[in-house]
């Protein structure tokens, strides 16, 4: 079909070669600002980061020389960097599953409920629309070891709360709780959109076929039909967790004892505080590689997935 349509378009348009050329020229003109800006602000900087990663460039010093893979060799032995990779992985593996499945569960409940639907959606979505740096400050108060409401509540039931953001054993959990709180509403809204697009008849058909319990209906209809949404939501959640920065910068500065040092915070420290641009560029290349690999995995899974719609 598409081929036929394309060729018929060719036939109708081929006599007017000059207008075609005029159209192409207009197209170039219209997209020129975008092309220039993509080159200046995306392609060149990425190329520059890759090149700088092979140099010892430091801001404030004149000149630089190429050092081959020295920066990468240093990364391999850099304990802070390894710590920050590990912390980022831990944070991501805490936040992503909780925020995806919590959002899915809440979306299913909200979808079934006839009253208060928009209230619940608003309540869970509010954190997405709030200034994270500001709300992180509120969480800092909530988590405060002595005057914070969370530990005050725990004390009411006889539990002595930890020093959430101040102890290296709990700081990642504290940040993860904020991360989940901040991201659930976003995932929830995407799941709600996915749920409403599932045809009602499928549930009726599943019931006729003997899927009596809610769990059966979820397993046989909801979960497979939501496949693409779930994959998308999961990928976005992972990428956003890998990019965690605001809460760390605002609340912990990577501490205590580098227990909350994460990837972007390390890059920020090396590049913009210590101004070791070459070394920070090598870290950035690692960060970009992680993003590329994640996208690649998503495409592969998407290709294999069965599409029902």
């Amino acid at each position, binding site marked *: 079909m598409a081929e036929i349509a394309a060729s018929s378009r060719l036939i109708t348009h081929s006599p007017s070669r000059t207008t075609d050329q005029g159209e192409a020229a207009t197209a170039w003109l219209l997209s020129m600002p975008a092309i220039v800006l993509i080159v200046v602000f995306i392609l060149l900087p990425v190329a520059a980061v890759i090149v700088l990663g092979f140099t010892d460039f430091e801001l404030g010093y004149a000149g630089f020389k190429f050092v081959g893979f020295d920066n990468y060799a240093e990364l391999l032995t850099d304990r802070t960097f390894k710590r920050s990779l590990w912390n980022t992985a831990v944070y991501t593996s805490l936040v992503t599953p909780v925020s995806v499945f919590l959002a899915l569960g809440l979306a299913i409940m909200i979808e079934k409920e006839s009253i208060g639907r928009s209230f619940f959606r608003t309540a869970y979505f509010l954190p997405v*629309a709030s200034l994270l740096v500001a709300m992180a*400050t509120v969480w800092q108060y909530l988590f405060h070891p002595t005057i914070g409401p969370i530990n005050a509540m725990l004390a009411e039931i006889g539990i002595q709360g930890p020093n959430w953001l101040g102890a290296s054993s709990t700081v990642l959990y504290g940040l993860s709780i904020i991360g989940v709180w901040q991201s659930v509403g976003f995932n929830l809204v995407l799941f709600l959109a996915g749920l409403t697009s599932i045809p009602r008849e499928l549930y009726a058909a599943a019931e006729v076929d003997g899927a009596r319990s809610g769990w059966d209906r979820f397993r046989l209809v909801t979960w497979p039909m939501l496949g693409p949404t779930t994959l998308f939501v999961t990928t976005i959640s992972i990428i956003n967790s890998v990019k965690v920065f605001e809460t760390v910068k605002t609340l912990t500065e990577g501490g205590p004892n580098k227990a909350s040092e994460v990837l972007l915070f390390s890059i920020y420290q090396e590049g913009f505080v210590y101004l070791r641009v070459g070394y920070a560029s090598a870290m950035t290349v690692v960060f970009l590689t992680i993003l590329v690999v994640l996208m690649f995995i998503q495409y592969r899974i998407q290709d294999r997935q069965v599409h029902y719609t």
Partner: protein
Amino acid sequence: MSATSFPLARIVRLSVLSLGALVFLAPYIFMISTAGKAQGDIFTSSLSLIPQQWFYVQNVSKALSRVSMGNLLFNGVVVCLLIFVMQIIVAIPCAYAMAKLKFGAARVMMVLVMVGLLVPIHATALPLYVAFDKAGALNSYFALVAPFTISVFGIFLFLQFFRSMPDDLIHAARLDGMSEVGIIGRVIVPNAWPAITAFAIFSVVAHWNDLYWPLIVISNQAYATPPLGLLYFRAAEAGDDYGALMAATLIITFPLVAAFLLAQKRFVEGITMTGLKG
């Protein structure tokens, strides 16, 4: 279905949803409550939500005196507005050319857009910072806005939207003798409002909240955006004056939250439509 025939399940569901909503709203409740408490009150009774003395005026005026909130909010509005307007001006003609004109480079452009979608500001920040530093352009609105004037995501979104627009509309306009720019201005844009609103919400939420780039290019308080200003305020307060701190967060969170509450349907539609963030 089961919603009406099995009330117990419904009661459980409603309680779970309500309890969850309470947990998610708790930070806001405590923020509003603590913003009105005196220092002593905060230290003695953290679980009572009603302040013993009403300290809102004192805390708010303290917050306003330490950091000029008006300036922060003004900077936030200017930066978000400039970014959004530039993004629209750059992205819409490009997406139109890719979707509706015979354009040999459309495929290459698509690849550029896909690559661009993968690259966040965090990856390009280092060379951009060096370049801005060399050009003496740090500490300016230009530095805050320039890297975001191109939104490949915007191009992507508008491209999808324009593709679904009927070609007849454009042919008719051409027969009427309209130029391509005229078509964009008078046919495409008026028909693309849903996509433009969705993109506006996406763009404003992203850049109003962004801390990373302003933190890098701004060291002069006069150009601080809301997140950066709050960071300065925290540093100046040295931590424990939670009354003033909560008053400041309240003032700074309010505009976007209010906008969300007023236009939440559009917000949710916008986020669903754009689907992407950050």
